[in-house]
């Protein structure tokens, strides 16, 4: 059912029915025509029209009052003042005038109610106003499911548009949903759509309701897109505003609550104030204070919930806790210092002397820079505990920084503050913990620093350890300089080989060699036994260690440069004593050799020289390792072949070259040594250095390898109680080596009676403990011939070259 229905057409008038209650209206076929601009009236809608032109006013005068019907036509061009027939769109709407207002500017405004579409056939008159002949038009409407679907979809779209448009009155939706007639729906929406006049006129002219609805649907869709985008943007904006308003509101509340609680008024300011007071109390240098002030100002401006706040606060806290001006007073009393050092450590005279010297210098020149000492020695000789004693002797705090395995530069110098969770480096962190700027800082295991793609911590340490630079040490995290010059650095290392040159250069290296047996006995008596008794809850009266028992442990159960295993074995004995005492077996125990054997089992280390070297082709070398001296067996054997040489036993390049040199030397001297050249040419030689799992390197086994080869090829065993060390040259000279003390100590431990040592090492003799000197015979040699003379003994005289063949 169309909304307006034509009931009857006559010559002069058309009768239509409108509305739900079937009201009849008679439309004359000639109507006064009101031209309008920029607006299109649709049937059923109520629209305001401005009336300004004289002709329009004349028209109003004519039709009003009364309920005369007028025809409203939209002009094609809004600028035409006096439109003629061609200037008007041919389809218009018949309207009744509902109201008339006077506008403040003197113009009149009418409100019209559209009734029905008409086609303007012609203009009948143009003065004083236009009238025209019309033909009332009727919609074409084909009911069906597709129309129903279209109506539903348009209605849904329109509802959505109304929801999203902020200005549409509430009843619009109500009206929209109450309109059931598709044509009416289309007209209502067409009137309210945001569209150009041209588009609207097209909608008016479209008599096919379905087509009209499609046009409207298209318009609605674009409008909906725009509105949805707008609404999205608006809700985003609103959300942001809501959030910041919420935060502001809560912060204000928090302030009010703080005020009520009697806390300082200025919100987060109290924390800033605390930090500022702390910082001022720390008395940092001016540069640092300036930086800190800047950060403080930033902190005040940031809400405390911001992540940045935490970062800055932590930074300032660390700044304020650093010992910028805190120092312990050095107690420089040389005799007392010496007493402390002697109390804690046996012997180590050289080291103690150096420390006393350092203290003496400090006494004369208190503002002097810090010394950087480096203790090098095998494990267990007491390097770390020596550092502690030094700190105690000087009355300073002791900090230990373990560098073993550190391979990230940031561990030394910190991370930049840009990184989340960044921290200062170990140096700064430990100083903060110590709370003083002049502690003794022990950089433990400096030789075990790593380096990888993340950086080289050793290089970072260069700055720390340079007395000329470290007063402006800048940690990445702090980003301000900290004065490290008051710190006394002590590094420890097992070997200097892996310490980079520049780093080694900055330190004063003090070697702490391994202990002799008598040293160990002394240490055991004075330190280890009392300590272990104490640790196991045994009073000194309850147990007594006899010297032979201790010596037995040292010889039979340990083979080391330090005393760590010794202490462990003494500890094992002590535990057994504790068990005996608690078990009620005895209340006073004397520890002798049998008791040790009972507790520790059979001896673990035996002199094995005699059996090893009783065949030709085996020589005993002396090696220097990071854990002290060692004896080393060189084995050589020969089998038919073509004169090739094989080397095994995990040996490094230097040692390989050294073996090749020894072999070449043998071949070049075959004649004089009485070796059959043919035998050499038809034999392959294999040199092996046992304990194949342990890497070995260095040139100092040259002499031993030469001796082993000579012994093999001359078929004469090396004397079993002789050990040797020295580098060889192709001219047969024996060059000096390092670590003589450790090597000879190892030789003595192993039960060697004679050592062959390069002549040029004679100068090291004063360093060798008397104990060693008295039990070893030193043979200083210059050439390999001297070596053979000692190693192979008197039998060398026999010069029968081919007797073994």
């Amino acid at each position, binding site marked *: 059912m169309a*909304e307006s229905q034509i009931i009857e057409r006559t010559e002069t008038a058309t009768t239509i029915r*409108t*509305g*739900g*209650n079937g*009201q009849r209206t008679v439309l004359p076929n000639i109507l006064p025509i009101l031209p309008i601009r920029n607006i299109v009236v649709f049937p*059923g*809608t*109520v*629209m*305001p029209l401005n009336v300004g032109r004289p002709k329009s006013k004349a028209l*109003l*005068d004519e039709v*009003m*009052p*009364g*309920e005369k019907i007028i025809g409203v036509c939209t002009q094609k061009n809004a600028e035409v003042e006096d439109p003629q027939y061609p200037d008007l769109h041919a389809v218009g709407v018949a309207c*009744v*005038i*509902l*109201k*008339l*207002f*006077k506008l403040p500017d003197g113009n*009149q405004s*009418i*409100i019209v*109610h559209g009734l029905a579409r008409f086609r303007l056939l012609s203009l009948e008159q143009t003065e004083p106003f236009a009238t025209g002949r019309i033909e009332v038009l009727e919609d074409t409407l084909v009911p069906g499911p597709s129309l129903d679907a279209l109506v539903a979809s348009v209605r849904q779209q329109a509802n959505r548009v109304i929801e999203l448009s902020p*200005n*549409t*009155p509430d*009843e*619009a939706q109500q*009206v929209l949903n109450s*309109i059931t*007639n598709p044509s*009416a729906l289309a*007209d*209502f929406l067409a*009137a*309210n759509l945001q569209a150009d006049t041209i588009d609207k006129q097209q909608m008016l002219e479209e008599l096919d309701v379905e087509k009209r609805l499609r046009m409207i649907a298209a318009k609605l869709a674009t409008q909906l897109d725009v509105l949805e985008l707008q609404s999205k943007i608006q809700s985003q904006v609103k959300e942001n505003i809501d959030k910041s308003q919420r935060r502001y509101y809560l912060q204000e509340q928090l302030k009010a609550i703080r005020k009520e609680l009697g806390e300082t008024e200025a919100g987060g300011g109290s924390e800033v104030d605390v930090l500022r007071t702390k910082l001022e109390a720390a008395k940092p240098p001016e540069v640092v204070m300036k930086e800190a002030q800047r950060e403080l100002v930033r902190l005040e401006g940031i809400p405390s919930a911001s992540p940045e706040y935490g970062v800055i606060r932590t930074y300032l806290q660390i700044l304020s806790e650093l010992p910028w001006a805190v120092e312990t007073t050095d107690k420089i009393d040389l005799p007392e210092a010496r007493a402390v050092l002697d109390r804690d450590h046996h012997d180590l005279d050289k080291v103690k002397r150096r420390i006393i010297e350092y203290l003496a210098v400090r006494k004369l020149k208190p503002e002097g820079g810090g010394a950087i000492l480096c203790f090098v020695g095998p494990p267990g000789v007491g390097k770390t505990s020596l550092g502690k004693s030094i700190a105690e002797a000087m009355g300073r705090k002791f900090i230990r920084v373990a560098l073993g395995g550190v391979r990230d530069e940031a561990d030394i110098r910190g991370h930049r503050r840009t990184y989340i969770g960044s921290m200062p480096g170990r140096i700064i962190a430990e100083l903060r913990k110590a709370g003083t700027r002049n502690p003794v800082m022990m950089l433990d295991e400096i030789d075990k620093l790593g380096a990888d793609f993340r950086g080289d911590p050793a290089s970072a340490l260069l700055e720390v350890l340079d007395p000329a630079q470290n007063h402006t040490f800048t940690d990445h995290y702090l980003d301000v300089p900290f004065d490290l010059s008051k710190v006394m650095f002590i590094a420890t290392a097992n070997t200097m080989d892996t310490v980079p040159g520049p780093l080694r250069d900055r330190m004063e290296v003090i070697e702490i060699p391994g202990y002799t047996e008598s040293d160990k006995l002394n240490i055991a008596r004075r330190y280890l036994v009392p300590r272990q008794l104490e640790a196991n809850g045994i009073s000194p009266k309850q147990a007594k260690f006899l010297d032979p028992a201790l010596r037995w442990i040292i010889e039979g159960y340990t083979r080391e440069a330090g005393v760590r295993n010794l202490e462990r074995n003494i500890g094992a004995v002590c535990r057994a004593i504790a068990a005996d005492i608690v078990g009620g077996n005895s209340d006073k125990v004397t520890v002798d050799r049998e008791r040790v054997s009972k507790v520790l089992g059979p001896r673990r280390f035996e002199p094995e020289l005699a059996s090893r070297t009783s065949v030709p082709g085996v020589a005993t070398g002396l090696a220097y390792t990071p854990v002290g001296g060692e004896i080393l067996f060189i084995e050589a054997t020969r089998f038919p072949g073509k004169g090739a040489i094989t080397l095994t036993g995990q040996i490094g390049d230097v040692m390989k070259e050294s073996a090749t040199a020894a072999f070449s030397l043998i071949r070049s001297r075959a004649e004089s040594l009485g070796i059959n050249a043919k035998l050499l040419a038809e034999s392959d030689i294999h040199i092996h250095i046992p304990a194949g799992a342990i890497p070995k390197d260095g040139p100092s086994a040259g002499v031993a390898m030469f001796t082993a080869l000579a012994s093999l090829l001359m078929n004469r065993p090396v004397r079993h109680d002789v050990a040797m060390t020295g580098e060889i040259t192709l001219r047969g000279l024996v060059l000096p080596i390092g670590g003589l003390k450790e090597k000879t100590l190892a030789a003595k431990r192993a039960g060697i009676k004679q050592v062959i040592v390069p002549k040029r090492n004679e100068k090291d003799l004063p360093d060798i403990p008397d104990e060693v000197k008295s039990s070893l015979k030193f043979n200083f040699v210059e050439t390999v011939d001297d070596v053979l003379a000692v190693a192979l003994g008197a039998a060398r005289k026999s010069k029968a070259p081919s007797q073994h063949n």
Partner: protein
Amino acid sequence: MSLTAATEQPFGKIARQANKLMDQLQKGYYNFYPGEAWTPNVNLYETETAYLVCVDLSGVDKSKIDIEVRNAGLTIRGARSVPLHESASDAEAGREGDSSRKIRVHLMEIDHGAFAREVELPQGVPQDRITAAYRNGLLWIEIPKN
């Protein structure tokens, strides 16, 4: 029984619908009246014994008012022609001949044309006992309570 109680509204939605025209037009919204062009204003009273509906229908010819009771709804329909002074009515009649008595309209705010107004009735009112009277331009409809 009170009308103010939100939970029991005997007349249902009684929101005033008329004269929002200007508001709507200012918002750029064009209302849609399929048939009736206006809605008369209504007062609603309650006494001990009855509900009284007063409809502002001044100037409406009593014979053109149509009251319909259907289900729970009371519908008032009718039409109001543009009110004219007697002299103007004469002029209307003899306009052709006497142009000196012609009138010019400067304001026309009073609603005219077809109107309809629906009022929801409380449940269980005896529909056969509803009475209506037209006095001084007001239509009084009395709905007795049980």
